[in-house]
């Protein structure tokens, strides 16, 4: 698990920012006129595409795959959650950004746990 403060802070910043941004933009795109299932898939796709430039930019500061993989996952999750929420009823921009940001923090924690589990399960794979 990453413990160096610079990178932990960078991961948190990258995922929270990506989540908030994708959440806010999703709130502008989706609304109650959308079918929830359609909104979910479109939201996931839009979230991933929107988070890519952010992942590339922040990756230059905080790490390549370690930023790109969770940030694009954040984009996918935040896009999915906010688009579905918006299809049930209007969600304000601030609330959407908040939901997106929480999604980002959740993805970051989940990725840290996944990393720890994968490395513990096969810290050294030898044939």
């Amino acid at each position, binding site marked *: 698990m990453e413990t160096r403060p610079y990178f932990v802070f960078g991961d948190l910043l990258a995922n929270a920012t990506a989540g908030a941004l994708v959440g806010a933009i999703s709130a502008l795109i989706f609304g109650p006129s959308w079918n929830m299932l359609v909104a979910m898939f479109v939201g996931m796709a839009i979230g991933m595409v929107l988070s890519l430039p952010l992942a590339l930019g922040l*990756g230059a500061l905080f*790490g*390549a*795959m*370690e930023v790109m*993989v969770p940030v694009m996952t954040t984009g996918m999750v935040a896009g999915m959650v906010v688009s579905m929420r918006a299809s049930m009823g209007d969600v304000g921009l601030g609330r959407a950004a908040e939901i997106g940001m929480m999604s980002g923090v959740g993805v970051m924690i989940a990725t840290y746990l996944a*990393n720890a589990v994968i490395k513990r399960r*096969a810290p*050294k*794979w030898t044939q």
Partner: protein
Amino acid sequence: MDAVTKAKWDKVAPNFDVMSGYGPEKRWAPYKRELFSKMGDGRILFLAVGTGLDIPFFPPRKSVVGIDISDKMLEVAKPRIDAYDGEIETHPMDVHEMPFGDGSFDQVFTSCTFCSVPTPVQGLAQLRRVLRPGGDLYMFEHTGSRYYPFRLMMNLMTPLTSRLGPEMNRDTVHNVGAAGFELREVQHVYLDVVKTIHATA
């Protein structure tokens, strides 16, 4: 020489360090330093030198032959090559067309290379050819993931990222075996995406 691949890396050479020179290198530094500490006293081939970002992690006083498909990348690498406390001889060269004789190296090192070689198994087979029997291949590579949702996302990203540079969903561990190497050890650096691989010819 693969003109398309060469042109792609020539184009990104001037700005490559902006994207990769700080965060990724700082984050991977402990793992790269550990991997390159395996460099011995025999003949060493390093593929691909790029802009020389890996050179500061080399142990001192080694004699290394470095190749890269892009001469523009090697131009950017020159100050790092000159600053190295040892010998680095570089050649612009395609891994598929290396003129080195069979078994002419004791060790081969790669760093984030086989995400970009267009035909990875053939490229790895060439590395096996130039390694002496029993010689070591040490790789620091990023690959695809076997786990959802990372696998799905990396498969979706690859058509886009391959236009700019690397592919995100390569199965490099499998490719090493397919090229005839004997796998010795795979260590995960980040998820099952960034890893070090040790194999022998």
